């Protein structure tokens, strides 16, 4: 059975990779199997991890869980066209709660923490680093300053303001370039993982 599983996995892996050549029947077959099985798999996972583990097992310990269950039930009312509009209530609750929670998170982590990290001495008695550290601090403070100016929407990017915004977008693009290379390297590990499977588990060429 294990042997059959490995052959099937190799067949589907190569089927998905065949897309690199062009769309074809093998890819369509692999894609359909992948989507169908993963959709079913996630239904099972979500049922046991959410409904069963987070609600059913703890329903007597935490009365607030029934509020969530009630909102979930309201969501299912979409299936009855006449009262389907009630399903908008839980959606409104989710959207509102998400905006509120994330708003605070963004404010604390993306604004306050980063502002604090940007405030640093550049020279003088409080600065004890090397020339390299000074340059690093200058790039960090200047890059953050100009980057923030780029994201001003209510003022036209002209004159000195526009120049600062241009420095900001250049800083962002240089950062993207560095991140691109870094992320590509990490993506390679996905490819290496599948090639390792094909050559080690399926073909047995690697020991």
């Amino acid at each position, binding site marked *: 059975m294990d042997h059959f599983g490995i052959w099937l996995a190799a067949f589907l892996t190569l089927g998905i990779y065949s897309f690199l050549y062009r769309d074809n029947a093998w890819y369509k077959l692999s894609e359909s199997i992948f*989507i169908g099985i993963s959709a079913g798999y996630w239904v099972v996972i979500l049922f046991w991890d959410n409904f069963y583990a987070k609600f059913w097992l703890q329903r007597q310990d935490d009365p607030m869980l029934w509020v969530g269950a009630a909102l979930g039930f309201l969501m299912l009312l979409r299936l009855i066209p006449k009262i389907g509009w009630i399903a908008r209530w839980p959606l409104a609750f989710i959207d509102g709660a998400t905006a509120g929670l994330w708003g605070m998170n963004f404010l604390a982590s993306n604004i306050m923490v980063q502002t604090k990290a940007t405030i640093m001495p550049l020279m003088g008695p409080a600065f004890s680093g090397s020339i390299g550290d000074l340059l690093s601090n200058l790039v960090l403070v200047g890059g953050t300053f100009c980057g*923030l100016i780029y994201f001003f929407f209510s003022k036209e990017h002209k004159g000195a303001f526009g120049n600062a915004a241009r420095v900001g977008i250049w800083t962002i693009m240089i950062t993207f370039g560095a991140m691109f290379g870094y992320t590509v390297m990490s993506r390679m590990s996905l490819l290496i993982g599948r090639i390792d499977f094909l050559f080690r588990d399926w073909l047995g060429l690697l020991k």
Partner: protein
Amino acid sequence: MRRIEIRNNSFLSRVNITILAFSLLLLTVASVTAQDEIDPVTELIDSVVTPANPAPPTDITVKDTPNDAGGSITIRWALSADDATNGISKYRIMRQSNGSEFTQVGEATAGAGEYLDGQASDEHEFNYKVLAISEIPGESGETIVLTSESVVSEPISSSAQWFDSRRVNVLVVTAILVFFILWFIQRAKSGEKLFIRKIAGLEAVDEAVGRATEMGKKIFYVPGINDMDNVQTIASMTILGRVAELAGQYDTWLEVPVCRSLVMVTAKEVVKEAYTKVGRPDSYHEDQVHYLTDDQFGYAAAIDGMVVREKPATIFYMGAFFAESLILAETGNASGAIQIAGTAMPAQLPFFVTACDYTLIGEELFAASAYLSKEPKLLGSLKGQDYGKGAILIAILIGVLLETFGIWELSQIFSVIE
């Protein structure tokens, strides 16, 4: 002969004297050695048999841990007098509820005068006591444990606090930001025209929908792979509303493949409402917004297949994306579609910048709803946010200047307790 005898007697008597002296010497040495052996043993027995217990911890105080969600009590005590001379190995914290036996809830290292009991229940009162533990090695290698205990604390129960006083600074910054936003919303509502600069990616939305209409091909809208509990997905739904309005006006087929059930429900509502708003409710079809799979790469594989088979004229990628971003954008690029992306995921932005025609970077995605709708309220909020950014810029400038001169207080205002 007699002389000889005398000599012999003399010889014997000398031998006897020598033996006697040697015996005395041996006895003396033996007695001295015996004394040397007995004294240390006596001392050791004395020290083992009568070890002293360490001095107990004193002044035990208990209080509900402040600024938390309940379930936690802080216990403090004055260190044992033996702690200063390394006579304490650790402290053991014991807890009792409703007159039951004391049970151990945790240990603190020597020198620590505080313990946080995170296993308390808000519904019960607890009493605590602290044991000072001294562990010394025994004669045969075993460990001898000596303890002494503090008095029992007053009963205490934990409770949740509504406000974390350590985060007052977050409240103040929020209040300033909200003030700016409300101020500009008010000004916008009173008829003042607010300027918003052009955002290329959003300007291109109309062009991209128009292109699909001219070509008679579909528009794909991919709302990312996160659920409705991500603010990027919420922003994406706002942009979807605008795209759906345009698609409804031009009667162009808009397809929204999703990978989360809640996103599907929300997207259906948004598209339906947009079609109704532009007077084309009959153009809306339930299967325009459809679920594929929750699986990240299953979703990517499905969209890739759809793109190469149906060759849409326009593809929008708006929301939270992860490793699938390049797979999607590269396939769309190869198919010749005009692509507009927007995300606040820093690691994915480089891929979208590379493979798409326009990219909304970070906050541009969140500004899109105000930009596209041109509603005074939203434009006012955008202007208010800009003033918030201005305040941050000023804070950075002043902070850097102050820290350069050795004044550190300003940056502490931005410290956030997690």
